[in-house]
């Protein structure tokens, strides 16, 4: 290789270096304990702040459910957004780990969506007088859970992950239409569910005594999600290695 060629070939970015599964496994082994520890510490701080907060003058002690329900709902949508970015990674950039990331995130996203629905129901009964109502926000989150389950089923239905990658990515991007529907459902339709009270950064409609524990819990959920996501990506890479080994053994 001459001097000119060396100058013209840029060093691969860390993003592309992680495309090598073995390198990703090393990265994952290093990062997982730190992320998990940080998630546990932040969750402990969030819970302490939450349980130290005064009772809400209207909701009483049920405001404690908010610290679980709202981050779960945010993460349900964030996880789907991560999957949609991964789908673009598969279809546009052809990043080798994009499909691994998409598959690994789906069951975690489904779990967060289930938590959002169940804790929301447990909060709704004492506050609204009902466990469930078919309003736009609740229904669109239920649709999100069904989309997650559908994508998990599709991923399992096609044996070869390389063949499954493209249809899975396309279906994920089609399902992304539901994310803005969830976000704006409370503005577009009359819903029993209250409109956004945190994302109005100019002046959140929430006292600091509740806002800070909520934001800390949201950070804890986010760290927990990324810990689980990287762990499950590692599992997905191992599953593919097993498949290659079995095919090789069968071909001999």
């Amino acid at each position, binding site marked *: 290789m001459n001097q000119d060629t060396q100058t013209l070939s840029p060093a691969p970015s860390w993003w592309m270096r992680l495309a090598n599964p073995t390198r990703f496994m090393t990265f994952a082994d290093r990062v997982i304990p730190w992320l998990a520890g940080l998630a546990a510490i932040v969750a402990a701080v969030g819970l302490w702040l939450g349980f130290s907060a005064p009772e809400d003058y209207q909701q009483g*002690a049920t405001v*404690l459910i908010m610290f679980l329900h709202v981050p779960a709902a945010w993460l349900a949508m964030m996880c789907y957004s991560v999957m949609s970015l991964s789908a673009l990674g598969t279809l546009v950039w052809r990043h080798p780990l994009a499909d691994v990331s998409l598959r690994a995130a789906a069951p975690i996203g489904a*779990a967060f969506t289930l938590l959002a629905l169940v804790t929301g129901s447990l909060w709704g009964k004492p506050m609204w007088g009902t466990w469930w109502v078919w309003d736009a926000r609740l229904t669109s989150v239920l649709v999100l859970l069904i989309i997650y389950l559908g994508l998990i089923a599709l991923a399992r239905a096609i044996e070869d992950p390389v063949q499954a990658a493209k249809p899975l990515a396309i279906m994920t991007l089609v399902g992304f239409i539901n994310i803005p529907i969830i976000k704006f459902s409370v503005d577009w339709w009359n819903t029993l569910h209250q409109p956004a009270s945190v994302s109005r950064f100019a002046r959140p409609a929430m006292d600091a005594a509740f806002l800070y524990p909520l934001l800390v819990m949201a950070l804890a959920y986010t760290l927990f999600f990324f810990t689980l996501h990287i762990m499950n990506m590692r*599992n997905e890479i191992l599953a593919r*290695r*097993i498949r290659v*080994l079995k095919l090789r053994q069968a071909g001999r």
Partner: protein
Amino acid sequence: MFGKHAAFILPAYAITLVVAVALVVWIVLGYRSRQREIARLERGGASRHGRKADRASSGETR
């Protein structure tokens, strides 16, 4: 501590804890079983570096 709403608050925290622990356990057990499976397959002579490596590791020559 939670007054009349304890019947809603405690299950919310319990279910969240159960789902979080279940996710961690499911992923950790999956990781261990896959590692065991790879070790078993590699003991059986399969190598993920291809047939060339398989032949080399088994001492096979053309």
